[in-house]
């Protein structure tokens, strides 16, 4: 046998081989064709190829293969079923090529192909189902997110409402103090009430800032102090100037209220005692370096402490100052130097 001896190849090939005319009437077949169809070669020659197919495959053949065979004379891998004489259809892949008016065809047994295709179809179904499930899960998730967002928005709304009411109530407290003060004549009493009103105002201002903050939790203490000092200025004689220089620093209510009360306390103290002549200047400075402590300085250019030792006179205000500083875990000292300069240092607040 020589390498070019195709005939024995055809005889022993594991695939069906045939030769037909341009009308696809079979002329030559190999033994494998007999195995696939259940028909002897003499029963195959002279038949139309399509007669070997099941009825449904004839339809497929008509729809997929016939026009290609009439036209170009070739088809590639058409999946069909042979109507085997034993009654069990055989899935095959048909490939035909043209050689002039001759048609040369191959039939591959395709049970694995069918199994593979079935798997593919099943896998695709599974994938589609998984996709649907994913979509559904996604929808649920989005609903959850929407619900949470709505709940948060609701909470924010309520929080704003709370701050509003607190502010309102503080205004009521302020009103009560005012009405009471109108019934008093004693200057000391009036001064005391004025002091109280200022402190209440400071607390109200913190809530005002909170209401305007985006996260309803923190705000810039610099802006707050500027508003506060402006208010204190209005209550002060024109001849005394209040200056504020505050670095930006994000703080929450727990830091701002004590700080605001401190500034109120020390500033009104200076206003009361530093300027018997009625003129002068009070500087408020807040430093907030990136690392390290927050420093608050309140300095006047007034007459200094009345006590010869240069220490402040004990009073309610001083008790409050010390208590607040402690509350903020800080420390404070007063220096007499062309007036009184208070310096307080605190650890920076954790406000994010």
């Amino acid at each position: 046998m020589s390498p070019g001896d195709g005939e024995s190849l055809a005889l022993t090939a594991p695939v069906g081989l045939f030769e037909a005319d341009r009308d696809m009437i079979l002329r030559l077949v190999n033994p494998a064709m007999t195995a696939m169809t259940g028909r002897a070669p003499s029963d195959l020659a002279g038949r139309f190829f399509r007669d070997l197919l099941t009825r449904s495959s004839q339809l497929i053949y008509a729809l997929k293969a016939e026009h290609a065979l009439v036209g170009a004379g070739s088809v590639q891998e058409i999946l069909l079923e042979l109507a085997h004489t034993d009654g069990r259809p055989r899935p095959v892949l048909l490939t035909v090529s043209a050689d002039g008016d001759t048609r040369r065809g191959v039939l591959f047994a395709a049970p694995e192909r069918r199994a593979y295709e079935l798997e593919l179809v099943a896998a695709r179904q599974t994938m589609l189902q998984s996709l649907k499930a994913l979509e559904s899960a996604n929808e649920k998730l989005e609903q959850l997110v929407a619900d949470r967002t709505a709940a948060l928005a609701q909470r924010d709304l309520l929080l704003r409402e709370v701050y509003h009411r607190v502010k309102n109530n503080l205004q009521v407290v302020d009103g009560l103090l005012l009405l009471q003060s109108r019934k008093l004549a004693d200057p000391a009493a009036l001064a005391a009430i004025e002091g109280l009103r200022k402190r209440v105002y400071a607390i109200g201002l913190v809530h005002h800032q909170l209401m305007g903050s985006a996260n309803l939790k923190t705000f810039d203490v610099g802006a707050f102090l500027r508003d506060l000092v402006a208010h204190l200025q209005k209550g002060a004689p024109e001849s005394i100037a209040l200056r504020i220089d505050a670095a930006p620093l994000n703080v929450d209510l727990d830091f701002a209220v004590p700080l605001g009360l401190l500034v109120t306390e020390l500033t009104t103290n200076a206003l009361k005692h530093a300027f018997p002549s009625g003129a002068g200047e009070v500087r408020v400075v807040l430093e907030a370096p990136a690392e390290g402590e927050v420093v608050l300085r309140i300095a006047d250019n007034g007459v200094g402490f009345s006590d010869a030792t240069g220490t402040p006179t004990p009073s309610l205000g001083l008790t409050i100052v010390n208590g607040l500083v402690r509350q903020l875990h800080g420390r404070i000292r007063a220096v007499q130097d062309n007036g009184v300069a208070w310096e307080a240092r605190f650890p920076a607040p954790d406000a994010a």
Partner: protein
Amino acid sequence: MPRFVNGAGDPALVLLHGFGTDQTIWGALTPRLPPARRVVLYDHMGSGASNLAHYDPARYATLEGYADDLADILEALDLRNATMVAHSVSGMIALLASLRTDRIGRLIMIGASSRYLNDGDYEGGFERGDVEQLLDLMALDFQGWARTLAPQVMDQPEQPGLIQELVYSFSRSNPEITRGFARATFMSDHRSALGACRVPTLVLQASADMVVPLAAARFLADGIPNARLEIMATRGHYPHLSAPDIVAEAIARFLAETQA
């Protein structure tokens, strides 16, 4: 998307291919058609490469949806007294369309059938099980079907300026749509619609057509009031491919008869 090459001469010929092919199937016939005619080639929703987004399974569950599409296209092209040359399943689509619009002047059906399933005395050619098997095999081999339905560009014929092309098609990778069209086609029964057809009709049929038994072709011609049956001297389901001269000549005669 319509692609227009300016044609001449009304009334136009609209060529409608059948299931499993696209407009390139007309390649052998178009050069043989009367030169003074405007020719429109049309791909159904279900073939080629169209917009999957436009596919509405409910609309295309029967051939009515395809008939609606055809009527819409005729409207859009403003065709009047048009001649439909419809192969295979398009025969019924064209007939249904003629019931909806008066823009169709006459029908020419090639290898068409009003019902593919056998029904008592009626010989449609197939049992229900055969068609179910077809649909199953399509499910198994959808890539193969998809390739079949892929769009191909039509060669320009020797007579330039004759052809209007319409590409109207959908995603070839969706087996559901393919099967939908197959189901709509082969499970359908339009025998009751035949009597309502008002336009002159030519039923062209080749012998030994595996898809349409002669009895079904006879039934079709008998059912349409103003129709005649012509059995051609050629075989198979694609006479316009295997014997385009015979088909072209039959068409020309019919056009002359019906003063088109």
